[in-house]
């Protein structure tokens, strides 16, 4: 991917730690995929983070230590001060929260169908129903992509979410519908959720439930 020039190693550290905290167990390859950074750079950052005591490495998997979350929050506060001060960012966050509600509803509709006052599992036997929900998810994902672009103007790593969403949708388009909501693959729900966590940390906000 293209990125702005002039990045220091600090950016790599931050992004790698961010990805590890989001995923909890992550191989270097997974972190490279999530951040869009080259594998050697990720491995180097992981080793440095281990030396700092923010992550533990075991069998090629990185895990955040107890201090990682706090360190990351602090790093985010320093790095993202400019972004947090941007008056437009509040509006952008509101836009996301609205979008998020529609998205979660669409995902629920993908998994379950309303029957009277109950829900039944979607057995995916009605192509018209599924096509409608996928179209809706796809529109919402396009909208999230736009929010990613706006954030990426100041925090380039957000561009990676759009790329990941695009790859997930490419799978859905060829019938791999696990990529809608399965937690076992890098599904749209997975990516969306990570984006949400990342956005909250970046802006220093708490999740609304």
């Amino acid at each position, binding site marked *: 991917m293209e990125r702005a020039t002039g990045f220091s190693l600090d950016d790599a550290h931050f992004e790698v730690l961010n990805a590890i905290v989001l995923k909890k167990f992550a191989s270097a390859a997974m972190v490279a995929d999530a951040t869009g950074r080259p594998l050697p750079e990720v491995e180097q950052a992981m080793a440095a983070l281990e030396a700092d005591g923010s992550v533990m490495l075991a069998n090629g998997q990185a895990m955040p230590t107890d201090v990682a979350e706090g360190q990351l929050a602090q790093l985010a506060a320093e790095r993202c001060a400019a972004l947090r001060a941007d008056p437009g960012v509040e509006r952008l966050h509101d836009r996301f929260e609205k979008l998020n509600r529609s998205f*979660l509803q669409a995902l629920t509709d993908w998994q379950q169908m309303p029957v009277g006052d109950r829900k039944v599992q979607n057995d995916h036997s009605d192509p018209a129903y599924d096509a409608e929900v996928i*179209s809706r998810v796809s529109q919402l994902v396009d909208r999230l992509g736009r929010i990613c672009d706006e954030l990426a103007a100041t925090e380039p790593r957000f561009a990676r979410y759009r790329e990941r969403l695009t790859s997930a949708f490419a799978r859905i388009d*060829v019938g791999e519908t*696990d990529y809608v909501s*399965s*937690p076992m693959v890098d599904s749209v*729900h997975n990516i969306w959720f990570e984006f949400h966590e990342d956005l909250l940390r970046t802006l220093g906000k708490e999740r609304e439930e």
Partner: protein
Amino acid sequence: MTGGPRARYVHFLDEVDQPDAHLLGGKGAGLVRMTAQGLPIPPGVVITTEACRQFMREGGVPADLFDEVDRNIERLEHRLDRRFGGGPTPLLVSVRSGAAVSMPGMMDTILNLGLNRDAAVALAQASGSVSFMLDVLVRFHRMYAEIALGAMDEFIGDAAEEFLAGISNVESSDPGRLFDRLWRVCDEALEFDVGTTVPLDPHEQLHGAIEAVLRSWQTPRAVTYRDYHKIPHDLGTAVVVQSMVFGNLGHPSGTGVAFTRNPVTGSPTLYGEYLEGGQGEDVVAGTVDPQPINDLADRHPELFSQLQRLSNELERTHHDILDIEFTIERGDLYLLQVRSAKRTAEAAVRVAGDFVNDAEMDLAGALGSVSVDQVRQIERARFDEDAVAHARAEGQLLTTAVGASPGEVHGVLVVDADRAVERAATGESVILARPTTSPVDLHGMLASQGILTVKGGTTSHAAVVARAVGKACVVGCGAIQIDEEHHRLTCGERTLAEGDEISIDGSTGEVFLGALPITHGAASSPDLAVLLEQADAVANCSIMGRVTTVEQVQGVLERGATGVATSVGHVLTTTGDLDAVIEVFNAQRDARRPDFRVVRRLVAEQFGPLLAAARKVDVGIRTIDFLSSEAGELLQQTELLNHHPRLAVPLGIPEFVGAQIAGVGDAISAAGFPGRAYVSVRHVSDPKEASAIRDIAAESGVDGSVGVYVTSPRGALLAPELARYGDVLWVQLSQLQAAMFGLSSREYLSGEPLDDYVRRGMLTTDPRTALDETMDVMLIPLAKVVRDTDCTVGMRLSGDVSEQIVDKLYAHGFRLYAVDAAEVRPLRLALGKAAATAS
């Protein structure tokens, strides 16, 4: 048709001869059919798929299309006495896409099109509500902006909301001026977003919407979908333009949704909701609380009985439960949408049973409306009802929160994902309780039977993931506090420590103290029992349910099996006697003529009670198979085979097989078993082997049936030869499929990596759920045995029964099956469906 230029692309719904989906799209053809049936459908036109094809050829809207559309709109105005873009009664229309096949990426519906200042003022007058008119304005503007102009954000809604919040006395304001101001506010928000505005001219709006539909046929998403599903790109989409009706114009008016039967219970009464004086979107958006459908009966009995009549009529023509959206405008009832209704498994079964009893429905249609999955859902494990009632009475109900993913499960409470994994690894059933979940809890969620969260609703992370992986989940347990530090949970006065048992119901959202006992649901479903009896009657097949213990026999027979299937290896493993058998081999490692009297005695002892429990039904028994992969780990296969290499072939040690056959014979005599017991030997592929088995049985002096259990292509191809020497020939279908595909049976049986492989399209047939014609080479000689000989041929199906496989096997003529106990009922349905379709 009336005079004027020849219709090229545009047809009135009531002027089409044939409801041809290829030309009119699925939606268009459905509307034409219903109009022809005399059902009250709002009048409208359909633009045929030919316009879409011409659009693709010309790279733009076909010449004269819009002229033709405008002429037809004029006719619609005359017919309805309404004006497009004016009053006193404005004509507003909906515009929808509709191909013969539905696909993602196509343009959605635009409602309320045709709104300009004059139409809006007229609408405000006709409805007596300025705020309704403004509401229609915002909805239309947003829909058009999003769908036809590709607006991406909620700017319009936000701007409109802000504007409206600043207006007091909406109803006494001048509607024309308000329309102008609000339209401008919406346009400005849109222009900021995409740099363009919504046209104010109704004809321009209509043309824009039609063009957007035609263009949406070519969106990358739709193109990819067609590529993948091999749908021709020149199929094209039709466009349906239909007049809008309003449930808030005059009296009596209203809107609602009706199901032809109750979709939750299946009871045969009209079910649904009605909102007097409401507009369709109000109900869909859930902004207002509609009343139960009986409200319509109370207010307007004649309209209710009309709806009831239409509902019955539609059910007769569709042979299905339907979901009907309707609107009443000034006393006229219109059907807006009619679809197959989503329903619970319970309702599906109940309704299919009622359809069977209804002379006008055919059995194939009735059975066809239920899936084997729905039977499984009814059979799924659930709490014993008496135990639940007792637990409630005893105050064991901890809290009632929100059911987010169905399932009734119990387990030990754990409040940390890592510890959930640890405890589950020891074989404990775990309920993971968390304040909320995030991806870091995933491993714990996967290891648990159920998930409980304090915060969050039905769309929370926990809920979405639980449903995706099929775990029971209760969310929003606000009454519960989790003390992560001390591994505790408190709810009111009570405190639970990690390791305490709890039970959760993912449908009702109830959380109970203690482990509620589990039963299986189907036993209490008389509707399912009746339906499956109908299926049995038409299928006329025998089903052996697999058991390994005496206690399981009764359960299998209750599920409707006509016999039981078992194996010496599994029975002796369960009773703990297999070690004694292995000891026989170890003790006689060097004996020239090993003594298998112990084996004979053990088999006789353990099969006596089993045969007694089977009373008089058929019992299929296969001899010990030290080669099977499931036996491998259990038996230290390699060790045994190293010392007794002859065990690697089916009849390597004939005395061992003979001892088992003789043991079964002893059990038959001892139990005075009046039924038929077959003993079969696995992995047989040669007529010489088959004849040897007959000789071994004769030597043992057994008065029973013996035969072979085929697991190889050679066995299947030589089946007619094998059948000459035996009374029974069992076939393990999964082994033949695995051999045909060159897959090891281990890979074949596990989900991954084959799931992934099939998803990636590397196999065009998934051998676990489908039989393709390559298997005919094996099935044809097997079917010949069924047709031409007295030898009994049985198909052993592994894992979940697939409707497609059963259908094929039934068509080949196979009438005897063996399945796992839980699959007996699904198989009965699948066979009934296969038989009803074939007859």
